[in-house]
């Protein structure tokens, strides 16, 4: 094993990890806000990828330009999912936890089924784009441009999110609602509005990730499943509810996955992720940055 191999693997792992973080942050945001795990998170990613694909296929919009549009569309979609489904699910008098799980889980199955019905199960790809297939090579280390762009978007999104949560009124309202959803009503904050915007924001972030991923990944109705699983681990590793934990968790997952594949057969590379996760659960059950 040469130094070049190790650096290449870690570089690929870091780029992928930043993207995992961007995929997971919406999940962490929504969970942190209202303690609901969105089991349709992978399907949010899937429709974002399809939206990007269709913008490309019918209107020849490059995925890079489509990204803001897709994020905006997903924002509306996420808010609508809260207002039409989750809002009612959290009101359940009995077994509220189960009702929440099944409502988003059911949504995931419906979305997958509809995607298969309307888009067919065929595998789609964005065949040409500004960034697709381009690669920069530094001293024998290859860095694919789409993943570099994904990493840049991810870092930018997290910086933006940091300022948004800490410096704006809405960010403070978000934090306050998270602290005590009952008390904020007393100071005139509409809980439903904050929750809907939180869902919108979470969905918009995964929309951003989906648009970038459409450049280099194949698209089909079940594409969300494997990424959703990683997103759940990322969130649990980084700390439930911690937005920046998702960022750190993503990087850890990406790096651990890449370095496991250096040591063990690649088919076992996810073993490394889960081993690290178990270790974290053992030593620090609330996750690396968890505050709960």
């Amino acid at each position, binding site marked *: 094993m040469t130094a070049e191999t190790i650096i290449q693997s870690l570089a690929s792992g870091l780029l*992928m990890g930043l993207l995992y973080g961007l995929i997971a942050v919406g999940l962490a945001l929504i969970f942190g806000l209202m303690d609901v795990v969105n089991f349709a998170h992978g399907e949010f990613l899937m429709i974002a990828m399809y939206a990007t694909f269709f913008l490309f296929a019918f209107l020849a919009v490059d995925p890079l330009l489509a990204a803001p549009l897709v994020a905006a569309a997903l924002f509306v979609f996420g808010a609508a999912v809260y207002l039409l489904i989750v809002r009612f699910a959290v009101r359940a008098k009995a077994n509220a936890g189960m009702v929440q799980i099944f409502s988003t889980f059911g949504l995931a199955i419906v979305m997958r089924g509809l995607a298969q019905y309307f888009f067919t199960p*065929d595998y789609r790809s964005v065949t040409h784009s500004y960034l697709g297939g381009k690669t920069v090579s530094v001293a024998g280390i290859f860095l694919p441009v789409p993943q570099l762009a994904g990493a840049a978007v991810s870092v930018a999104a997290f910086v933006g999110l940091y300022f948004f949560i800490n410096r704006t009124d809405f960010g403070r309202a978000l934090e306050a609602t998270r602290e005590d959803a009952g008390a904020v009503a007393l100071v005139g904050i509409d809980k439903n509005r904050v929750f809907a915007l939180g869902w919108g924001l979470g969905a918009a972030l995964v929309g951003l990730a989906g648009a970038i991923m459409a450049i280099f990944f194949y698209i089909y109705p079940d594409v969300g499943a494997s990424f959703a699983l990683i997103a759940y681990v990322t969130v649990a590793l980084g700390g439930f509810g911690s937005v920046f934990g998702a960022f750190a968790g993503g990087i850890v997952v990406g790096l651990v996955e890449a370095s496991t*594949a250096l040591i063990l057969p690649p088919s076992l590379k996810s073993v490394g992720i889960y081993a690290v996760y178990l270790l974290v659960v053992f030593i620090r059950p609330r996750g690396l940055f968890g505050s709960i």
Partner: protein
Amino acid sequence: MTITRRNVLLGATATAALLPVAGRAQTTEVVIGVTYPFSGASAQQGVDAQKAYETALEVINNKYDFDLPLANDEGLAGLGGAKIRLVYADHQGDPQKGRAEAERLITQEKVSAIVGTYQSAVAVTVSQTCERYQIPFVSADNSSPSLHTRGLKFFFRAAPHDEMFSKAMFDFYDAMKKKGTKIETLALFHEDTIFGTDSANAQTKLANALGYKIVADIKYRANSPSLSAEVQQLKVANADVLMPSSYTTDGILLVKTMAELGYKPNAIVAQAAGFSEKALYDAVGDKLEGVITRGSFSLDLAAKRPMVGKINAMFKEKSGKDLNDNTSREFMALIVLADAINRAKSTEGEKIRAALAATEIPGEQTIMPWKRVKFDEMGQNNDADPVLLQYIGGKFVTISPPQAAVAEAVWPMK
């Protein structure tokens, strides 16, 4: 849907009680179960397979001027012109769902035989279930060599398995070496279910026996979000030939990642699966000029055997695609099974099994480049000669074996 033990028992008893009556009565239709992934990661394969079976059904149930068994009259003459009806069941690529669906087809839909299943891992459970109920299972497009060596009496496969396919690849390497091409090292890249594992085992065995060196043997997890670490290892190994055994999703990601990491092998010789699929070439065909894949089918055959072109046209009208490695095998599986039922003059499992075992269809009466269809005592057809196809200028050209080849191989690939 859940199937309780009692339902199964009831179903089995009912089937057993009804069978002799059904056998004696005038049969007007024969029901055959077809199980494929119609949802999940490989749903497109199921959708395409359905079109292939519909094409075969049309040929069997109607009158056509093809030199194929059962094409020349309507329905099955041996059963008084009975028509075949297909019942589709979705196994989602999951072996346990495959088992449950096979039970349902047998006990509730009362099928006389089952064909399937695309994934070899599902064929394992479906064929075991069929064996238990003494119903023939015809494996259309599963290629794992271990499937027919499990001592099952009701298992039949007309198409080649991956040892035969891999043998064809190594015969081709030997021939290329004689012409002065340097082929010494191989890199195996295979997914982690029975298909990839069996394929890699067969290839390892052949490589060792024939003196080729395997410099990388990479087993990866199917539907991985990323293959960069895997491709990095392939790149370091830099073998003369890369030999992937991958389904469509991983195939697309493999080719994209190879381009991203600047890895360009001299040659790729693929164990079909994803590398036979239009979706893969739509996505990354521009990076695959000169890729070689094994196949059981070649459209080049249409020049010699016009019905191949006509049947391809019938299929294309339904699916919008040309027949490929998978859909051609699916088409033939139903023809072979229907031919046996016709000769059995019965819908009883044991009689169909006996007729299948006595099958002898000459190669000219198939749409395949095979010598003939004749099953050995394990239910495998050893006279199904595979071909190697090379992707040149947007279509597949047969390059091996010599008797089927229409062009010389381009080596190295572009």
